[in-house]
C-alpha cells in the first residue's frame, strides 16, 4: 500500500472510530461586521484546517462578492479536528451562517443542524438588532449559547458595558469569553468552551437514516450536492437514498466532509455533518429542509423542516436588448441552482417587453443577485423598482395577489387593498430616539414599544408597511443616526391601506415599469418629487421629453427634459483620434443600461427613482 493510500485509509479508520460523543456541531451568529468571519478564520487556523499563510482572508466566504462586501450570503460547513485539554480528539463541525436580516431564513437552516451557537458581539458596538434576532432564533432551536465579546483589543472596546447588556437580555455574562479575533487572543478558550459546553449529538446509530438537508448547491460536473446533518442512522456510498418529500430515490455516488476542501468519506453517521452526492440532476430534488432516508430501510417520519423561504420583495428583470431574453433566462436558471431562495417567472411589460418577475428575500438579497448578474454574466439588464405583494379584494368578491404595480386592476373594480406590514425593531443610542421615531412616523409606522436596555441601547418597535421599508428606509435610518442604528424586521401580516397607483407618462405614453403603488396621503408629493427626480436622471435627448405623473386620470405633476440641441466633437484630427474615441466610449457606456421606448432612452436609475424621493 503506498503511503498516500495508507494515509487515506487511516483517515477513514479515524472517522470510523470517532464516537458520537466526540462530535460538536456549532454555528456562529452575529450582527453584520461584528467579526464572525474573522473568528471563523482563527478557529480554522487554530485547529490546523488552514495555515495562516495559505488562508485567503475569511476562508468561509468563498464567493468574491462575499469577500468584497464582508458579508456571508451562502452558508458553508467545515469539519475541524481538535484535541481538547482532556487529551481527547474531537470533531467540530462549524456551520457558517449569514449575518443579514434578509437571510434569517438561512440562519434558521444552519441552526437546525447544530447543538450550539457562538454569539459574537463587538466589544465597542454592543448588542445590535440582529444579535437579538439571531439569539432568539437560536434559543427557539434549543441551542447552547456561548457569548463571545470580540474586538477587545480596540481602544473603544467596553466589555463591561457589553456584559451588562448581556445580562439585560437574560444571558449569564459570567460565561462570556473575551476575544480578539484580530490578534488571536481567546480563541483557545472558545475551542475549549465548544467541547465543554455544547452537548454532543444524541442520535440513534441503529435507527433508519434521517438526514436533514440544510443547504444544497449545484455542481456542473456532479449535479446537485446536498449538505446534510445526520440526525439518526448511517449512510454509505452505494446506498439507495430516498427524499422523504417526493419519494424520489438516488444511488449515493460519493459522500464528503469539508476540511475545508472536500474530502471523500465512505460513510456518514448520526451526528455528523457532510454532503451527499447522488447524481441528482435537479437542484429541486435536494430541497432544503427535506429529510433524506434510505429507500430500503426508510424512516417513518421526516424531521421537522423549515418554512420554505418566502420572497418578500419582487422586481422586474428585463434585458436592455430584447434579443438577450433567452440569455437572461439561462442566467436566472443558473443563479437559482445556487440560490434556492430566488424565484422568478416570465412577465411582459408593455414598455420593457419580455422579462421576468423575480422574488427576493429582501433588498440586500436583491442587490446581491443584481451584482452577480453583472459579474458572472455579461448581460445588460434593467431592473424595476422593488415592490411588495399586495392583496387586492375585487368588487366581485375575488381576492388577488399583485406583485407588480403595472398589473393593478382598474380602480373601479377594487373593493379594498391590503399590504404587508412588518414589526420593525430598531436598536439605537438614546440620543437618536427622536429622529428615528420621526422617520418611522413619516414612513406610516405606528409605535408599538420602546425599551431602554442601557443608555447606549434603546430598542424601538414600530409596525410599518413593508413597502415603506423598501423605499430607502435603511439608508435614511443610517444617515439620521450617524450609522448607529441597526434594524431587524419580521412580517406580521396584511392590513388594509388606502393605496393608489401612481403612473408615469413619458412623451405622453404610459411607462408601466415606472408605475408604483403609494399611500393616498403621499400621492401628490411623491408624484411631484418623482417627476422631478426623473427629470434629473433621464438624459437630454434629441427631442423634448415631457414627464407626467398621474393618478387615475388626473395629472399631478409635469416636468420636461429639454431637447439636446448639439452634441458633437468640434475637432478631430490625427492626434485626437484615440482621445476622442475614449470620450465616445464613455458616452456609449452611459447608454448601455438604457432602455429605449420609441425614441426616448431611459436609464436604469429612472426605474429606481421612486426609492430616492421623499
Amino acid at each position, binding site marked *: 500500500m503506498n503511503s498516500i493510500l495508507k494515509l487515506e485509509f487511516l483517515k477513514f479508520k479515524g472517522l470510523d472510530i470517532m464516537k458520537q460523543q466526540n462530535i460538536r456541531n456549532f454555528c456562529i451568529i452575529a450582527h453584520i461586521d461584528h467579526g464572525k468571519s474573522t473568528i471563523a478564520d482563527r478557529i480554522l487556523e487554530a485547529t490546523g484546517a488552514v495555515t495562516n499563510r495559505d488562508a485567503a482572508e475569511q476562508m468561509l466566504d468563498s464567493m468574491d462578492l462575499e469577500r468584497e462586501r464582508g458579508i456571508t450570503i451562502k452558508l458553508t460547513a467545515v469539519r475541524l479536528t481538535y484535541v481538547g485539554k482532556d487529551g481527547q480528539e474531537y470533531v467540530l463541525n462549524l456551520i457558517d451562517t449569514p449575518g443579514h436580516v434578509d437571510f434569517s431564513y438561512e440562519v434558521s437552516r444552519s441552526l437546525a443542524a447544530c447543538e450550539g451557537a457562538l454569539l459574537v458581539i463587538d466589544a465597542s458596538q454592543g448588542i445590535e438588532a440582529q444579535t437579538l434576532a439571531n439569539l432568539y432564533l437560536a434559543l427557539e432551536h434549543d441551542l447552547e449559547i456561548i457569548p463571545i465579546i470580540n474586538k477587545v483589543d480596540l481602544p473603544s472596546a467596553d466589555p463591561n458595558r457589553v456584559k451588562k447588556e448581556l445580562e439585560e437580555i437574560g444571558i449569564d455574562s459570567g460565561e462570556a469569553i473575551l476575544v480578539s479575533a484580530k490578534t488571536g487572543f481567546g480563541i483557545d478558550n472558545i475551542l475549549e468552551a465548544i467541547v465543554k459546553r455544547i452537548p454532543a449529538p444524541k442520535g440513534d446509530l441503529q435507527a433508519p437514516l434521517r438526514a436533514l438537508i440544510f443547504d444544497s448547491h449545484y455542481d456542473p460536473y456532479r449535479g446537485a450536492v446536498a449538505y446534510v446533518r445526520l440526525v439518526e442512522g448511517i449512510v454509505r456510498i452505494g446506498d439507495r437514498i430516498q427524499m422523504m418529500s417526493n419519494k424520489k430515490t438516488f444511488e449515493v455516488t460519493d459522500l464528503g466532509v469539508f476540511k475545508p476542501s472536500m474530502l471523500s468519506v465512505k460513510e456518514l453517521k448520526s451526528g455528523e455533518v457532510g454532503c451527499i452526492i447522488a447524481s441528482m440532476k435537479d437542484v429541486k430534488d435536494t430541497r432544503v429542509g427535506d429529510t433524506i432516508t434510505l429507500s430500503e430501510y426508510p424512516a417513518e417520519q421526516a424531521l421537522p423542516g423549515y418554512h420554505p423561504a418566502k420572497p418578500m420583495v419582487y422586481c422586474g428583470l428585463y434585458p436592455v436588448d430584447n434579443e438577450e431574453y433567452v440569455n437572461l433566462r439561462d442566467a436566472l436558471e443558473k443563479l437559482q441552482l445556487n440560490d434556492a431562495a430566488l424565484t422568478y417567472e416570465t412577465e411582459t411589460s408593455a414598455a420593457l417587453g419580455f422579462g421576468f418577475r423575480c422574488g427576493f428575500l429582501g433588498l440586500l438579497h436583491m442587490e446581491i443577485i443584481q451584482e452577480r448578474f453583472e459579474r458572472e454574466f455579461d448581460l445588460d439588464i434593467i431592473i424595476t423598482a422593488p415592490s411588495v405583494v399586495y392583496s387586492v379584494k375585487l368588487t366581485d368578491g375575488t381576492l388577488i395577489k399583485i406583485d407588480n404595480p403595472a398589473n393593478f386592476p382598474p380602480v373601479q373594480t377594487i373593493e379594498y387593498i391590503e399590504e404587508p406590514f412588518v414589526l420593525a425593531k430598531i436598536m439605537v443610542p438614546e440620543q437618536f430616539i427622536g429622529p428615528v421615531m420621526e422617520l418611522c412616523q413619516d414612513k406610516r409606522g405606528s409605535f408599538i414599544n420602546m425599551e431602554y436596555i442601557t443608555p447606549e441601547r434603546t430598542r424601538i418597535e414600530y409596525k410599518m408597511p413593508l413597502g415603506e421599508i423598501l423605499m430607502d428606509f435603511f439608508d435614511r435610518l443610517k444617515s439620521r443616526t450617524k450609522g448607529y442604528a441597526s434594524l431587524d424586521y419580521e412580517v406580521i401580516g396584511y392590513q388594509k391601506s388606502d393605496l393608489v397607483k401612481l403612473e408615469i407618462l413619458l412623451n405622453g405614453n404610459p411607462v408601466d415599469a415606472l408605475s408604483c403603488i403609494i399611500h393616498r396621503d403621499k400621492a401628490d408629493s411623491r408624484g411631484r418629487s418623482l417627476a422631478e427626480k426623473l427629470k434629473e436622471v433621464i438624459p437630454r435627448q*434629441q427631442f423634448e421629453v415631457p414627464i407626467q405623473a398621474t393618478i387615475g386620470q388626473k395629472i399631478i405633476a409635469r416636468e420636461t427634459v429639454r431637447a439636446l440641441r*448639439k452634441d458633437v466633437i*468640434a*475637432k478631430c484630427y*490625427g*492626434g485626437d*483620434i484615440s482621445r476622442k474615441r475614449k470620450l*465616445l*466610449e464613455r458616452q*456609449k457606456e452611459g447608454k448601455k443600461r438604457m432602455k429605449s421606448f420609441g425614441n426616448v432612452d431611459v436609464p436604469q436609475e429612472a426605474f429606481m427613482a421612486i426609492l430616492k424621493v421623499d
Partner: protein
Amino acid sequence: MLGLYVHIPFCLSKCAYCDFHSIVADEELVGNYLDALYNEIRISASIVQSQVISTLYIGGGTPTRLNSRQLEALIVQLKTNFNYAPDFEFTIEANPGTLTEEKAAVLASQGVNRISLGAQAFQNCILRKAGRTHTVEDVYRSVELLKHFGISNINLDLIYGLPNQTLTDWIESLKLATALKPRHLSCYSLTIEENTLFYDLYKNKNLQLPTEEVEFAMFDSNRKILPSIGYRHYEISNFALPGFEAKHNIIYWQNQAYLGLGSGAHGCFNQIRYYNSYDINQYIHNWQKLTPAVAHCQYIDLDRTMDETMMLGLRLLDGVKHADFEQRFHHSLDEIYGKEIKKLISRGLLEKNEKCLRLTKQGVSLGNLVFSAFIRGKSQEQTLDK
C-alpha cells in the same frame, strides 16, 4: 500614399483655450529641437522610402514662431528626404502675429501652397480675452502678405462660443472673414479643455460663456450663411470652396495612414497608432542619439479600424461610401452595423442612399450620438514593443 505631419511645439504665449502640446521656449531649446527633428526626419524617410507623400502639414504650436532661417532649413530637410506626389498639398499653420514678410517669402519660395491662419475672431476685445497675442489688423496684414507672395489657398480658423462673444459678433466675424475670400474656413465650437486657463475660470464660474441657445444659433448660422456664398459644408466644422477641401485632414477623416514627426506628434501607420514623447527634452535627448522617441504605440485590429473609420468618416458630410467600405473591409456596412444604422436612420440622425451613408442635418449637430453607436467594445490597452 501617406500623409506627413510635423509638430512644432512652441508658441510665444499660451492661449487661454488651448491644450495642444506647446510651450514657451528659449532659442537654445528650439535649436536643439530642430536638430533632433532633422534626425527623425532622415531616419523616418529612410524607413518609408518608396512611399509617396501626398500631403505635408506643419502644425503646432506655432510653426511661424520659428525664424525664417529655421523655417527654410526645416522645409529643405523635409523636401529633400521624402518623395512627394507632384501635386502634393503643403500646409503650414501660421499665427497672424508672427508671420513676417521675410517668413512669408520663405514659405512661398519653398513651395508651401496652403496656409492655415489662426484668425479666431474679428473683435480685438474677444481676441484679448482668449489670450491671443495678435489683433484683427494682423489678420488683414497677414492675408495681404500671403497674397502678395502668391499664396491664395488660405484657411482661416475661427472659434465660436468664446467668452463674451455675442451672436452678432460671430456673424460679423463670418462676414469679415469671408470678405477676405479665403478658400477654406474652419469654424470650431469652443471646447473647454482641462489644463487651460479657461478651464480654471470655468470651474470657478468666472467665464461668461454664451448660453446653449446662442451657441447653437452660432453653429446654425455657419451652415446657413457660408454655403449661401459658395463655401461647401464638407465636415462638421469645415467649409471650403469647391476643390479646396483640406486634403491632409481628409486623410485623418478617411482613417488613412500618416506619419507624425516631432515631439507629441501622432501617427498611424501599418495598423499601429503611435505618438512621440510629449517631453521635449526627452525627445531631443533620444533623437540626438538617433533613438526613436515613441512614447506609446497600439495595434489597431480590424474591428477597431472599422469602428474608427465610421467615427471619423461620418464627420464628413458626404459620409462613408458603401463601395469604399466594402473595398477596404470586404463586408458591407449593413453586415457590420445593420442594427445601429437602422436605429439611427429611424431616429433621423443618419440617411442612406445608393452611394453613401451620412449624417442628416440633425445628425451633424448630434454627431456624438451617431459616432458612439459605431464604437463596439472598449479600448484594450495593447502596448506594443517598440
